[in-house]
């Protein structure tokens, strides 16, 4: 065991933060177990009504929709991010490398609301996509893109992309290029070499990226709220609609607790599913 002189110094602030988060979580939990009193800010006595109300099919549907949107976002982000990360790692020209990196991470520097409003401009009836399609004569009336799952996922992929690219690029950068060259020298074409060598070796990055994208999307609020227009709802929108906008804090708390439990369940499941693939990583 090596001496770690700074361990206590670094652990102390982290422990304080953890204590703060724990206190906040405990407050949310105790609110979820209390009754709502109409017309009052104070919650009532102990009650399980908030959780029994969650058994209605509506809530089950929103929970399933949330998981589905998270899955679609993670999968689409992976498909878009992988070629970008690959190009970022393998580009020889430093200018091209820098350009790819800047384009990939720019969404992180835009405010969530600004970014979402710009998507409304792109996806709306009079937006960029519909205008182009109408001018090209491909459609005779605007396509309904806004307020659909497709629109919400598109905007969510945009925000998830930088994280996915960075995680995949980190994984790809750790793969020794000589492995791919060795495969090619043994007769494999570039596609086969990629599919049998690079792709399996980048599995840890894929798992990390997908898990992070999934967890990140789970708490998305502004994007489904504005792009979904109340027609595509995720759990956080339901918390806002039913809890905060109507001052029913106990019910909002129970939705949050249920959402958190579901996140843990899904992430645990992902971990179990991903375990057999982890052995493919570079050693």
């Amino acid at each position: 065991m090596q001496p770690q002189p700074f361990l206590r110094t670094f652990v102390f602030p982290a422990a304080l933060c953890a204590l703060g988060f724990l206190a906040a979580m405990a407050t949310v939990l105790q609110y979820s177990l209390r009754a709502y009193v109409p017309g009052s800010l104070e919650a009532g006595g102990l009650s399980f009504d908030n959780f029994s109300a969650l058994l209605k099919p509506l809530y089950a549907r929103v929970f399933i929709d949330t998981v589905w949107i998270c899955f679609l976002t993670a999968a689409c982000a992976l498909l878009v991010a992988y070629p970008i990360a690959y190009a970022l790692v393998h580009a020889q020209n430093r200018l091209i490398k820098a350009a790819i990196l800047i384009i990939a991470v720019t969404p992180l520097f835009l405010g969530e609301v600004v970014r979402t409003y710009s998507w409304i401009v792109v996806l709306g009836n009079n937006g960029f996509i519909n205008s182009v399609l109408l001018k090209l004569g491909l459609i005779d009336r605007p396509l309904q893109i806004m307020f659909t799952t497709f629109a919400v996922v598109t905007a969510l992929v945009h925000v998830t992309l930088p994280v996915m690219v960075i995680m995949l690029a980190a994984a790809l950068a750790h793969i020794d290029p000589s492995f791919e060259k060795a495969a090619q020298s043994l007769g494999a074409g570039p596609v086969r070499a990629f599919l049998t060598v690079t792709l399996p070796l980048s599995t840890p990055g894929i798992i990390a990226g997908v898990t992070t994208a999934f967890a990140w999307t789970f708490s998305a609020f502004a994007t489904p709220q504005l792009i979904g227009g109340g027609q595509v709802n995720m759990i956080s929108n339901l918390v806002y609609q039913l809890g905060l906008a109507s001052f029913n804090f106990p019910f909002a708390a129970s939705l949050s607790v249920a959402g958190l439990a579901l996140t843990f369940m899904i992430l645990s499941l992902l971990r179990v599913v991903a375990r057999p693939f982890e052995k493919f990583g570079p050693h």
Partner: protein
Amino acid sequence: MKRLSILAFGFGLLLLSFPAAAQDKLVVSIWGGSWRDLVAETVAKKFTQETGVAVEFITGGTIDRLNKAKLAKGNPESDLNFTTSHVGWLYANDDLYEQLDLSKVPNAANLVEQAKISPYHVGTWAYVYTIGYRPDLLPGITFESWADLWKPEVKGKLAAPDFDPSHIIVVSALLAGGDAGQWEKGQEKLKQLKPSFKAYYTNDANSQQLIANGETPVQVILSMNAHHMIGQGVPIKLVIPKEGAVLGIDTIAIMKGSKKVDLAYKFINVMFDPAIQAEVATLKKGSPVVSSAKLNPEIAKLPGVFSTPEQWKSQAIIIDHKLRAEKTAEWRKWFAENIMN
């Protein structure tokens, strides 16, 4: 020793400066953006001119400020609070407001009855939620009654606020022979409107964007928003249906525990100054709450701007503010479960 004395003196001065600074300003809690600017440029400006006391604003959303006020109960961060009439009841029910003595507010003598919300909070300006639509995108369709929203031509074109369904819930109840207290009577009627909803807007900016780009050419819209967009060149027609439009009133109250109650009363008195009321109405295209306010005829004729007792009586659907505070959660939940999802 000398250095220590200087330090102690400096520290003493610093301590003395805190109460002095606190006496020099009145703290007002209000929404941010144009609402803060409106009050800063009208009421606060005149208040400071008259009293020499500066006004400091604490801004935030309705819920954020409510939560902060609750946490600071007894030792409020602000002296005065602006919020909507029904949310004001939540403050009052939680003992966060001082009971008002309107005898200390001479200008309140002309306050319209509809603005006297409770013993704790009074209206400052009014607006309506009503039907606003784009005639250029809906040729041949007119709206004279709330019932016209149920026309088949409106299918897939309507938007309403997602943060407060009380307007459409009460309207549906009225059309079905009920009222706010018997809102259940309108449930089936409102369910028939479900196919007409294309989206639900989250805030004023979202509402403005959806009607400006034609995404939702009909909205249950805040009159002030519609007038703002008309001023920007968006061809919106705002209608006061024959049943009336749903009245909304923003209110002011003195926070319980405020140490500047006298100044707070002076601020409220300036708020009800007829000239200030007319200025607020002109800037926001809302209704003044004192009958003595003299409005520019161009403003007075706008739909949703009430300047006569007859208009207040015949054009406004008033949802009892206390009932609304108590029912908001129930209405919101029913709307989310049966209409939105």
